[in-house]
């Protein structure tokens, strides 16, 4: 893929440490519109931490974030949302005691002119978007704690997609899903990509990476091992990057 022009997102030289341990150590990655970049590495390699600097959950100690070539300040999740960055967290980040609609609109409720939350409009919108994502979804009036893993995932994905995201962060979106639901997420990623969104995908399954991603950035011990174009390497190459922390000679 020819990535020319300004990247949608550039994370430049990002560092963050917790109690003296460098969780992310001078990492630079970028993302272009209509592209899926996989973030790979062992557990504890720093993928989730890096991405949380972009989603506003953490504030980086050093480095800068550029959106469309312009430096932006992201110090909390609201800032990230204002930049049209949406995140599907590994934990899903749902309030278990609220229903699907309340979770979907959490922090961005639709209110009536009187300033009261408009539950029926929000439920109607939720029904619309979930019908598209997961036609089997029925349980609109129960707390999400009563939903299956796949249904909960649908709610989390719906929340990220509904608000016209330009940049989507997906932290292991298929970890809790069955084969059919995994296929559904794969199709959704293709569709969103075609719409011109940029997607950061944290993924452990190497087959999914080969199938869904355009480029892959591999991290180890908080540092970036390298970034490769997925169609120029084999899955063994990527695995050796993850395990050995070495970039394959031919892709360099």
């Amino acid at each position: 893929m020819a990535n020319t022009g300004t990247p949608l997102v550039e994370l430049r030289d990002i560092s963050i440490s917790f109690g003296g341990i460098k969780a992310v150590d001078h990492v630079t990655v970028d993302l272009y519109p209509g592209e899926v970049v996989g973030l790979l590495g062992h557990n504890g390699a720093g993928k989730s931490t890096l991405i949380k600097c972009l989603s506003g959950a953490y504030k980086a100690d050093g480095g800068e974030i550029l959106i469309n070539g312009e430096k932006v300040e992201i110090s909390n999740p609201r800032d990230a949302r204002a930049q049209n960055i949406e995140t599907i967290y590994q934990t899903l980040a749902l309030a278990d005691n609220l229903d699907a609609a309340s979770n979907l609109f959490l922090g961005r409720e639709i209110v009536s002119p009187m300033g009261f939350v408009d539950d029926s409009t929000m439920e109607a919108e939720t029904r619309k978007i979930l019908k598209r994502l997961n036609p089997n979804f029925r349980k609109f009036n129960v707390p999400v704690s009563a939903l299956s893993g796949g249904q909960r995932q649908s709610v989390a994905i719906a929340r990220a997609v509904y608000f016209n995201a330009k940049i989507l962060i997906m932290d292991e979106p298929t970890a809790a899903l069955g084969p059919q639901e995994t296929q559904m997420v794969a199709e959704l990623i293709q569709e969103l990509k075609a719409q011109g969104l940029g997607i950061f995908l944290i993924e452990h399954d190497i087959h999914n990476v080969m199938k869904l991603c355009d480029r892959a950035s591999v991290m180890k011990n908080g540092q970036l091992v390298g970034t490769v174009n997925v169609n120029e390497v084999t899955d063994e190459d990527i695995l050796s990057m993850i395990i050995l922390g070495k970039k394959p000679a031919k892709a360099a």
Partner: protein
Amino acid sequence: MTDTNSPTPSASAMPDAQPGAITRFLHATEIDTRLLGMVGALLLIWVGFHLYPAISSVMRGGAFDLGLGNFLTPRNLWNLSVQTSYIGIMATGMVLVIIIRCIDLSVGSIIGVTGMIMGLLQAEYLPPLLGLGHPAIWIITAIVGLVVGVMIGAFHGWLIAYRGIPSFIVTLGGLLIWRGMAFLSASGRTIAPMDEKFALLGGGPYGTVGAVGSWIVGGLACLGLIYLLISGRSQRRKHDFPQRPVWAEVFLGAVGCGVILCAVLLVNAYPWAKGIVAQYAERTGQTLPEGTFISHGFAIPVLLLIGVGIAMTILMTRTRFGRYVFAIGGNPEAAVLAGINTRWVTLKVVSLMGALAGLAAIIVSARQNSATNAMGELDELYVIAAAVIGGTSLAGGSGTVYGAILGALVILSLQSGMVLIGFGDGSYQKIVVGTALVLAVYLDILYRKKVK
């Protein structure tokens, strides 16, 4: 709430029918089964206390005489409503505090200190400035009471939310500190009497709205209920959501209005005592014949409770703030990731609790027409117990305002019932209320397991 007939026959007649019918009925009316259980328990307590004198007379070889019962009388139920009001008002705030996984042990002491400040203000500081009985005294006093309550709550909330001190510790400290302050404020003196207009806020014969006023309140409540049912239905139709069957809507409306109207009849059936009628006649210069029937009607603190209950219900279910309170209780981390300023919400919840404690202090001091440093002692425990009996989960994330008010009613029914049947020396009351608290939570745990 005082109606003992309308909600039960339909519900209690059901268990004899096949189980499918109950389920269908509950499903169609969308009645919360927990609410039903609580109302059932309350009625059981009421009937039990009412029958106790008759039964104990039979045990002693006397005749079975229902007339001996004195619990289900207009007089007792009216008094019960006034006693419930200030605990109920605080319990509505405690629900929010517990939902966000905090606790407030200081509310009783806040009553003590704000009550003393208001007492001193209206009895010793304002009269020399404005003149005794000046009409502004009660307003200034009440506002100062509310503001002091908010300030204490906000201070606690700041320590909890922005300094990370556990709410249990902050408010346990508050419990001791504010009680000490209440004593020091007047070196332990009792301040009395309160301003005449201020005293009306505590209920009592003059602190009521009378028969006509009660009918107006009841009529407005019925209209409000019907409006809610109709607008809810049209909202559902607008979005093509499943609707309740018409008979279920009519049933809910009829039961609701029935309860409201029975409550009006009840408070209007409790007349002023002879002495009060004579005093009133003398004051107004009327000549009222012997035995004139003047109804109490709803007491002002009860109307305050109803007002607070409605406002808090709207706040929790219809505003963003309420939604955030639930979200924080359900998953604090998710709330932060959704961009909610959880610290600010926490501070506001604890401040609101302080304001409600201030309002409760107004009612308590007005009701006893004096301010003492012991006002509100142990009330924090009754308030927490009311919220928990009302179905608020101590794990956070769930609870309702109406549940907390019903919980307060259950506790005060036990308390006043024990007094009526001659176990009023306090020790028995405490034993019964304590047992009820543990039992209620245990039943709730069983219920939740069964539902899962």
